[in-house]
């Protein structure tokens, strides 16, 4: 546990120091993120045996105090968070086009890192409300770094995020009023299936779905994520929407009675397929490059939602593994995609998809990063996205009665192939290439590609990871 706490404390302390000394030194943040990554890896090592470490904050046991729990999934998420932050901050420091250099991006990204670590570790419903608010406010503050153009989508995001928090908080109040505890495990022991509890669960779910931009409550996401500076878009899509998703997964997998879970599971699964199709369709049609990538996030979250739905519907813990593999693979791929897209749009001087004409020639590296990341999103073997999809599909294919769900996955795959190939075909149209406005920044393009390479390498790692998750549970 002490390594996990270190992984949380280091970014928070770094943020304080950066703010106090008003430095915007990216190297300090990179060093801090590296240290946090090392600490998170040590934490992961400590739970290798599957032991769950508990920590009662202030030595007050729940229900009086707040409890932290470090299990296998939490440790993996801590490593994931630190890794993504490290990759993105290195890019933000190195790229000439990153508009985050002399801004408060640095302390804010540290605060985002700390908030996420606090969220993964906590197991308290009210404490999660505060971490959700932290995530929302950090996200909005980071979006408006890019200037006045982003104020309108940021305000919309902030208001919806506040309303969602209040929806969640009302649900928490109902649960506390009914059972008198806030700790999720204690709640799981006493919870019964009655209309009041179902209403509270509905409120929690609506609030969290709005925050995680899960279909049909996703309308705020594309504008907000597209308006942010490139490095921030990457963090938002890879990490911020995953926080509420974690709480949603936790709440449903521990609190819902099987009967209720089955009913809700069908709805979640249908919403997931709707997200895959509608998000993919919107990504296929939008004229703006970053909006395309943002819609792809909406679509990809559909897989997570589908996995959650099937987890509840079949009560099959294998689906939890599929869900979190999707989250990991999508996070890494989306970082590459946003960074590649951001590099291309800054170099070509236009935010339109059509401006990418000939980009395979003028900016081969960034385009390659985009395509490689896209390959993982489509689920081409042997990428991380493929492995996640494989885990999801296995139980779908064994039984003929499950085949309709597999059809949904197929539709989603086709949609994501559609928008990735839309970009790739334009980029390979070398007839009349748009000439780059500035010199392409080769180092930055390599850094954009790095996460995509990691996600393909994940295929090698994922077999032990899956076996380990199966053995010790999440």
């Amino acid at each position: 546990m002490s390594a996990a706490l270190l992984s949380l404390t280091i970014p928070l302390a770094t943020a304080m120091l950066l703010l106090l000394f008003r430095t915007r030194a990216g190297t300090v943040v990179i060093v801090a993120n590296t240290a946090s990554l090392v600490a998170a890896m040590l934490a992961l090592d400590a739970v290798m045996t599957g032991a769950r470490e508990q920590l009662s904050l202030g030595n007050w046991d729940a229900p009086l105090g707040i409890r932290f729990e470090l299990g296998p999934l939490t440790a993996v998420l801590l490593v994931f968070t630190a890794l993504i932050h490290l990759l993105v901050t290195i890019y933000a420091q190195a790229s000439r086009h990153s508009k985050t250099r002399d801004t408060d991006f640095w302390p804010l990204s540290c605060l985002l890192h700390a908030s996420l670590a606090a969220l993964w570790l906590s197991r308290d419903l009210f404490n999660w409300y505060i971490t959700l608010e932290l995530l929302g406010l950090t996200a909005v503050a980071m979006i408006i770094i890019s200037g006045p153009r982003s104020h309108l989508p940021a305000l919309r995001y902030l208001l919806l995020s506040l309303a969602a928090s209040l929806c969640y908080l009302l649900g928490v109040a109902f649960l506390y009023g009914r059972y008198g505890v806030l700790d999720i495990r204690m709640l799981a022991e006493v919870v019964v299936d009655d209309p009041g509890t179902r209403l509270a669960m509905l409120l929690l779910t609506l609030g969290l779905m709005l925050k995680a931009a899960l279909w049909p409550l996703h309308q705020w996401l594309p504008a907000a994520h597209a308006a942010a500076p490139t490095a921030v878009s990457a963090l938002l899509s890879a990490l911020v929407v995953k926080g509420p998703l974690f709480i949603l997964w936790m709440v449903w997998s521990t609190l819902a009675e099987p009967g209720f879970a089955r009913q809700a599971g069908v709805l979640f699964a249908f919403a997931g397929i709707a997200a895959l199709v509608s998000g993919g369709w919107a990504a296929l049609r939008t004229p703006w490059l970053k909006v395309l990538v943002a819609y792809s996030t909406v679509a990809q979250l559909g897989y997570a939602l589908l996995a959650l739905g099937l987890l509840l519907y079949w009560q099959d813990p294998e689906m939890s593994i599929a869900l979190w593999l999707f989250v990991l693979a999508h996070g890494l791929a989306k970082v590459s995609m946003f960074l590649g897209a951001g590099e291309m749009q800054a170099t070509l001087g236009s935010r339109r998809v059509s401006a990418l004409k000939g980009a395979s020639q003028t900016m081969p590296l960034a385009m390659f990063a985009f395509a490689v990341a896209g390959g993982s999103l489509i689920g081409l073997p042997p990428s991380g996205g493929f492995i996640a999809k494989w885990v999801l599909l296995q139980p779908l294919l064994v039984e003929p009665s499950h085949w309709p769900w597999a059809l949904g996955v197929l539709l989603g795959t086709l949609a994501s192939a559609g928008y990735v190939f839309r970009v790739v075909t334009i980029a390979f149209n070398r007839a009349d290439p748009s000439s780059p406005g500035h010199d392409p920044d080769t180092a930055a393009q390599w850094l954009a590609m790095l996460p995509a390479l990691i996600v393909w390498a994940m295929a090698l790692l994922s077999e032990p990871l899956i076996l380990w998750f199966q053995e010790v549970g999440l």
Partner: protein
Amino acid sequence: MSHISLYLLGGVALWVLGLHALMTQRNALRRIMAVNVMGSGTFMVMVALAARMTPIDPVLQALVVTGLVVAASATAFALRLATTESPVADVDRERE
């Protein structure tokens, strides 16, 4: 019927009023006030739940104090964000 039930009902009614205004109003300041009314409704439910027993539940009251400060901070940010002069983006979006 005790006074607690009245306040619980009042709280949810405030929450719903706020939600309705959030969905139908267009002005940013009005929407911010709507979110605040939703917040007040939530807090009223929590305070009424705290008051239903003797001694009064200090945990819920503490949670509401925390929630109030969080809500006020977010409101302050939203108010500045809503009223900072921003050249409307539509014009230069067309130009590109």
